[in-house]
C-alpha cells in the first residue's frame, strides 16, 4: 500500500482487528472439522479413541495458531516467507536423514509430541514464497525467461525432494499449486502450454519406462496407475482399495445408511478408512446429501477466498489468498477424484476431515494467513 492511500483508506489496528476477522470462514472451517470428528468417531466404532479425540486437540491447536497468525500484520509474514520456505526445505532434507518410515514412504520427522510432515508444511511455504517473489518482482518482468526459471526452481526443488520420499500426492499438489501461483501472477500463457506439452511427454515417459532400467516411478506406483485404469483386473489385490472405495461411496444412496450404520467402513472393508478414504464413509453414512453438503462448504470457503483476494489491493495478499485457496481446492479435488475412481490413488487427505495432524495444522496456518490478509487489507474510510 502506498503511503498516498493512507488518506482515504485505513487498516484496523490493535484489538479492533478481531472484529475484522472473517467469522464466516471460521464457522465454515469449524463445521467441516466437526463433520470430520463425527466421521472419525463413527469409523472408530462409536468411540473418541483413537482418532476423534486426538483430532479435536489438533483442531484446537490449529485454530489458536490461526487466530495468532491472523493478528500479525500480513507484511510481517511477507518478510518471513523466504525464511519459512528455507526452513521447510531444510526439514525436507532432514526427513531424508532422520525420517520415520511409514506406509512404504519416509515422510515424518518425529518431534516427540507429534509427527511432523514437512511435505505438508511445504505446501503453504511454497505459496508464501511465490507470493512474496511476485510481490517483489516488477510486473513487467514476470514473463521473462530468467524470472520464470527462478520460481520454477522454487517449485521443483521441494517437489523433487518430496518425490524421493516417495510421496506422489504431495508432489502433484506442489507442482499444481506452484503452477497456479505463476498463472495468477500473470506469467505468459505460452509457458503453460509448453509445460502441459512437456507434462504429456513426461507421462508418456513414465509409462514407457515401466519395466526398463531407467524406470521413473516405484513399482507400487505403477501398480496404482494400472489398477486405476482397470480396478477389476485385480479385485482382491491392488484394485481392492478402489473397488471397495466405490462400493462404500455408491452404497450410500441419497440419504445414506445413517450415522454409525455404514457397513463398509465399520467392517473394515474400506482401507485407510480414517485417513484418505474418509470421504467415502461420509458418503456411505450420510448419502449424497451429506457428501454434497461437504463439497458445498468447501466451495464456500474457496468463494470467500476468491472474493477477499479480489478486493485486496495488496499483491502479496491477493496471491497468497488465492494460492492457499487453490492448494485447499487441490486437496479435496484430488482426494475426491481418487475415492470416486476418477484419479489414481496417490495419497492425498481430505482437508480438515481426514485424520492427520500435520495437514490440519498446516491448513489452519494457511487460513491464518488468509485471515491476516483479510484483516490487514486496506479498507475505504
Amino acid at each position, binding site marked *: 500500500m*502506498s503511503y*498516498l*492511500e493512507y488518506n482515504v483508506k485505513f487498516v484496523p489496528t490493535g484489538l479492533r482487528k478481531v472484529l475484522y476477522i472473517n467469522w464466516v470462514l471460521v464457522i465454515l472451517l469449524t463445521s467441516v472439522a466437526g463433520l470430520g470428528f463425527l466421521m472419525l468417531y463413527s469409523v472408530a466404532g462409536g468411540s473418541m479413541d483413537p482418532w476423534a479425540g486426538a483430532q479435536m486437540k489438533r483442531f484446537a491447536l490449529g485454530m489458536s495458531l490461526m487466530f495468532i497468525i491472523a493478528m500479525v500484520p500480513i507484511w510481517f509474514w511477507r518478510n518471513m516467507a523466504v525464511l519459512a520456505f528455507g526452513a521447510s526445505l531444510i526439514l525436507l532434507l532432514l526427513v531424508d536423514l532422520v525420517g520415520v518410515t511409514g506406509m512404504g514412504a519416509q515422510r515424518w520427522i518425529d518431534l516427540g509430541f507429534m509427527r511432523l510432515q514437512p511435505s505438508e508444511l511445504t505446501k503453504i511455504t511454497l505459496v508464501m514464497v511465490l507470493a512474496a517473489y511476485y*510481490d*517483489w518482482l516488477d*510486473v513487467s518482468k514476470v514473463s521473462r525467461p530468467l524470472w520464470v526459471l527462478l520460481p520454477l526452481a522454487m517449485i521443483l526443488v521441494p517437489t523433487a525432494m518430496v518425490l524421493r520420499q516417495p510421496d506422489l500426492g504431495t508432489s502433484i499438489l506442489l507442482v499444481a499449486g506452484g503452477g*497456479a501461483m505463476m*498463472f*495468477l*501472477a*500473470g506469467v505468459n500463457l505460452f509457458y503453460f502450454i509448453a509445460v502441459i506439452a512437456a507434462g504429456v511427454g513426461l507421462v508418456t515417459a513414465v509409462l514407457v519406462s515401466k519395466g526398463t532400467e531407467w524406470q521413473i516411478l516405484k513399482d507400487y506406483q505403477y501398480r496404482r496407475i494400472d489398477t486405476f485404469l482397470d480396478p477389476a483386473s485385480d479385485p482382491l489385490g491392488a484394485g481392492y482399495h478402489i473397488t*471397495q472405495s*466405490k*462400493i*462404500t*461411496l*455408491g*452404497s*450410500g*444412496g*441419497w440419504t445414506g445408511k445413517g450415522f454409525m450404520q455404514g*457397513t*463398509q467402513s*465399520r*467392517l*473394515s*472393508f474400506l482401507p485407510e478408512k480414517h485417513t484418505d478414504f474418509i470421504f467415502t464413509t461420509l*458418503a456411505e453414512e450420510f*448419502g*449424497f446429501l451429506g*457428501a*454434497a453438503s461437504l*463439497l458445498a462448504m*468447501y*466451495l464456500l470457503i*474457496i*468463494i470467500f477466498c*476468491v472474493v477477499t*483476494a*479480489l478486493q485486496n*489491493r495488496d*499483491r502479496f495478499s*491477493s*496471491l497468497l489468498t*488465492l494460492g492457499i*485457496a*487453490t492448494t485447499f*481446492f487441490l486437496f479435496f*479435488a484430488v482426494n*475426491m*477424484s481418487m475415492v*470416486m475412481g*476418477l484419479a489414481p490413488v496417490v495419497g492425498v487427505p481430505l482437508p480438515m476431515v481426514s485424520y492427520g495432524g500435520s495437514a490440519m495444522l498446516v491448513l489452519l496456518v494457511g487460513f491464518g494467513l488468509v485471515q491476516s490478509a483479510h484483516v490487514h487489507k486496506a479498507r475505504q474510510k
Partner: protein
Amino acid sequence: MRRSPADTERSARSISRRGLFLGGVQMTFAGLLIGRMRFMQVDQADEYRMLADENRINIRLIPPARGLVYDRKGVLLAGNEQNYRIVMVREDAGDPEEIIARLAHLVALDPEETADAVKEMKRRSPFVPVTVADRITWEDFAEVAVNAPALPGVTPEVGLSRIYPLDSDLAHILGYVGPVSDYDLSRLDDQDPLLQIPRFQIGKSGVEAKLERSLRGSAGTRQIEVNAVGRVMRELGRQEGDAGQNVQLTINHSLQNYVQQRLAGESAAAVVMDTVTGDILAIGSAPTFDPNKFVHGISLADYKALNEDPYRPLYNKSAAGLYPPGSTFKMVTALAALEDDLIDLDETVTCNGYTELHNRRFHCWKRGGHGKVNLVKSLRESCDVYYYDLAQRAGIERISAMGRKLGLGEKHDLPLSGIARGLMPTKSWKLESGKGEWVVGDSLNASIGQGFVLASPLQLAVMTARIASGTAIEPRLVRAIDGVETPIKGNVPLEGIDPENLAAVRRGMYEVVNGQRGTAGRSKVVAEGLRMAGKTGTSQVRNITKAERARGVTSNADLPWERRDHALFVCYAPHDNPRIAVSVVVEHGGGGSTAAAPIGRDILLQAHYDGLPPLSAYPSSQRGTIRSQQNNLDLRAPVEPSEGRDRV
C-alpha cells in the same frame, strides 16, 4: 518494495482476471465431482448397495443332528453323544504355546495333537478357533471351564458325535461314520454343501452309508455379518435345518447280541429271518469290531490288526461272503427236478457210493453208499448220488432257474455294504467267462452245491424262508424311516413251484433233524409245537486229490484251518407253521451237522423265545451241556427301549 499506483492497478486487474478464471475452473471441477457423486450414489446406488451386502453377509452352515437308528423294539443302536472338546483362539491366547503348557497341567493332552493345533493356529487367521483336545471327559471339561480366567483364549465346547451303544454287536450292519474325505467327494457326486464342512461325518459303510441321505438331514444356515478379514461380527438370521430322519431296523438287538456271542471264536456268519414278513432279525458275522473306534479315528496299529486278521473281522460275511452252499443246495436241485416231473416223489435211485461218468467217479460222502434212496431219504441222509442222478435229468439251466426263484444268485436290496450276488451258473455264463463248454460233470458238482455254485448266508436264509413259507418273500432290514413303515415285499405264493413238491422237500428237511439217521439228528428240538426242520451242508474248499483219498487224509482235523471244509446249516421252525428261518456258515468249521447245526438250533430257539430258551426245549441228554454253554455266554444285559430322539 514501492510501486506506482498504476502498476498496482494493472497487476490487481491481472490477478482478478486470472483469479476469477481459476475460481471458475475450480467451480467447474467441483460441479464435475458433484455430478459423478450423484451418478454413483443415486443412479448406481442399488448396484453398489448389493455389492456392499455381498461383502458383509456370509452364510454359515449349521450341521444337522444325524438321524438315530433303533432296533425293532425301539432300542437305540446308533445315537449322537455330546462330545467335549477344547478349542483355542490364537489372538485371545497371546502365546499359544504358553497357554497350552498351562493347560497341560490341568488335563492330559496329546503332545502330537497339540503340536498340530499350534501349527494350525499359526497358519489360520488369529481369530479362528482351533481344536486343541477332542473327546475329553466331563471332569476335564469342567476343570477347564473353572480355570477359564487363567486360560485366555481357551474355551471348552460341546459338539455332537456318533456313538454306537451296542458297540461291536451291529458293526457289520450299521457300519460307521467318519470325516468326509476327498475320495468320498469324488465318489459320491453329492452337491450337499454340508460335505464342504471340514471333518463333517458321513456314513462310510453299512446302513450309515446306504441310508446316508435319510440319516444326514439338511443343513441349517446362519447368516452372519463378517468384516473384511472374515471375523464374525454378529448373527443376522438363522434358519434351522432338518435333523436327519430316524431309522428303525428289523433287527432284534438282543438276538443280534446272542448271535454274535454264539458265533464268537469262530470265523462264521448267521442270518435270522422272519419267514412271514421277511424281517431280518439278526445278521451275525464273527469276528466283529468296535465301530466306535472308527468314529474316534482308529489307530494305525489297531486298523492293521483288524485288516490282517485271517478271520477278517471287517468283512460282513453274512452278506458279502460267498460260499459253496454244499448240501444245503440239494432242496434246489430236488425242486428243479420235481417241478418238471423228471422224478416222482417216491421214485428211488440206488446209491453205491459213487456215480461213474465218462470214466470219472463222483463220490457220495458215504463211501459204502445209501442203497435205495427216495427224495425224503436223500435229504435226511444227504445222499449225493441221488442228486447226481437228478442233475443229469434236469440239467444246469433248470437247477439255476430254481435257485434264482428261491433267492440265490440275486443281489437282495438291503442297505448293507458289499452285498454279494453269488452265482447260479448257466452254460452261457461259463462260456462267457472263458471257462469253456459246460460239461455234465459241472452239473453234477452244482447239484450238491459245489463247483461253480456260490451263495451268501443271507441268500441261504432267504432260500430257507421261501421254502418254508412257500412265498417269494423278500428280506427286509429297514422297518421304518422317519415313522413311515417299509412295505413287506414278496408275500405271495412262489410262482411255478407246486406246493406239493414244496411239502415233500419240507418233509425231507423235517426228517433231517427229527428222523432216524437224520444228519442233524443231534440238533433236535423237543419243545412241542417248535419242531425244527433243516438241512446240513459241508462244502469242500478244495478238491480231495486221489492221492489224499488213497492216503486216507479225509479228516478235517488233519488239515490246516484254511483248507478245512465249511460247515453250513439252514433251518426253520416250527416245521408245521414256519415263522423263523436261520442260516449258519462256519468257515472251515468242518462238518455241517457238528459245527453248524447246533449253532443254528440255538439261534433259532433264541429267536423264538426272544431270550435264552428253556432247557426243556432241548433233548434231555443234552441239557447239561447246553446249560453250561448258556452260562458261558457273555450276553449283554437287557437294554430298555429309548424314549425317542429326545435323548440327544
